[in-house]
């Protein structure tokens, strides 16, 4: 009788250890998948911002890649404030800013909707040309996209 109880005890201990191990593995996999999803979301938001027609340069209806029109920025800022819900669907909880590095330094905040108590934050910096249509010259800028997730 005592032996049977001992064997059963060891058996259940092993089962418990196995279960704890399995739960830990599943938990770490879920965390990993969550992190990967946040990363993909961050990449998605970065790409959406890079191709926003509200900011992109164009000439005779031909779009220029990796280029932001400086004269469009002010209008885009006010447009994004007026249509918060529409842009939330596109950009979710993120902060988008454009910094001009050369020839002169300048900074524009395009969209800002931060998340309180966020668990992870991804910052993506993309070098981008800043086109001034009045002078027809390009400056060197950086498009900074910060995405938040819980």
């Amino acid at each position, binding site marked *: 009788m005592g032996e049977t109880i001992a064997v059963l005890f060891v058996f259940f201990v092993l089962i418990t250890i196995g279960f704890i191990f399995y739960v830990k*593995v599943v938990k770490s996999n879920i965390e990993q998948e969550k992190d990967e999803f946040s990363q993909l979301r961050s990449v998605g938001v970065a790409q959406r911002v890079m191709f926003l027609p509200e900011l992109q340069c164009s000439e005779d209806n031909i779009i220029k890649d990796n280029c932001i029109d400086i004269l469009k920025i002010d209008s885009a800022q006010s447009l994004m404030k007026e249509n918060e819900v529409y842009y939330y669907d596109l950009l979710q909880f993120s902060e988008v800013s454009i910094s001009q590095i*050369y*020839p002169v330094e300048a900074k524009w905040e395009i969209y800002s909707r931060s998340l309180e108590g966020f668990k992870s934050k991804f910052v*993506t910096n993309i070098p*981008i040309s800043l086109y001034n249509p009045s002078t027809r010259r390009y400056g060197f800028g950086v498009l900074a996209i910060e995405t938040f997730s819980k």
Partner: protein
Amino acid sequence: MKTQTKSKNLVVPRKSGFSTGAQMEILGLAIVVVLILMATIYIVSFLVIKTPTDYRKGFVSAELASNMLNTLLKTAAKDCSQLTMTELFQDCAQGQGIVCSNGQDSCMYAESTAKKIFEKTLDKWNMKYEFLAYTDINAPLVKAGSRCLSEKRSKLFPIPISSATMYAKLDICG
């Protein structure tokens, strides 16, 4: 009485011998169980635990080198009659006829501007890089950063000049 002592004498050594054998068997079983457990953990760690994929790093490093170079080459130089960096590199490779308003020739101006831009971007983001503009890779006309020792993302941009082709190359390390 004699038979009783005999039987007692017979039982005692047999009992102790059986006990040692059983202990050895249990020890053997325990070792087998531990080995099976270790093998299971090893297999599970391979099958169940996935290696994390860094999607963002892949995207950023793929975009960074090409965007950086494209943007740099399009940028207008503020002290050189608003010529683009491409035009300055071309002049640098073709004999440095251009002198900028700050007194620097095209090679020096292009190099200082490139360094200024990299300082505010790649250096600030703690990224190692090497930028070269050359017609002959062994004698670069413009150089910034230091050579990548291991993995790198590279972007090569050919620039046409009168005699041949020059290249602008940016390596982002890591």
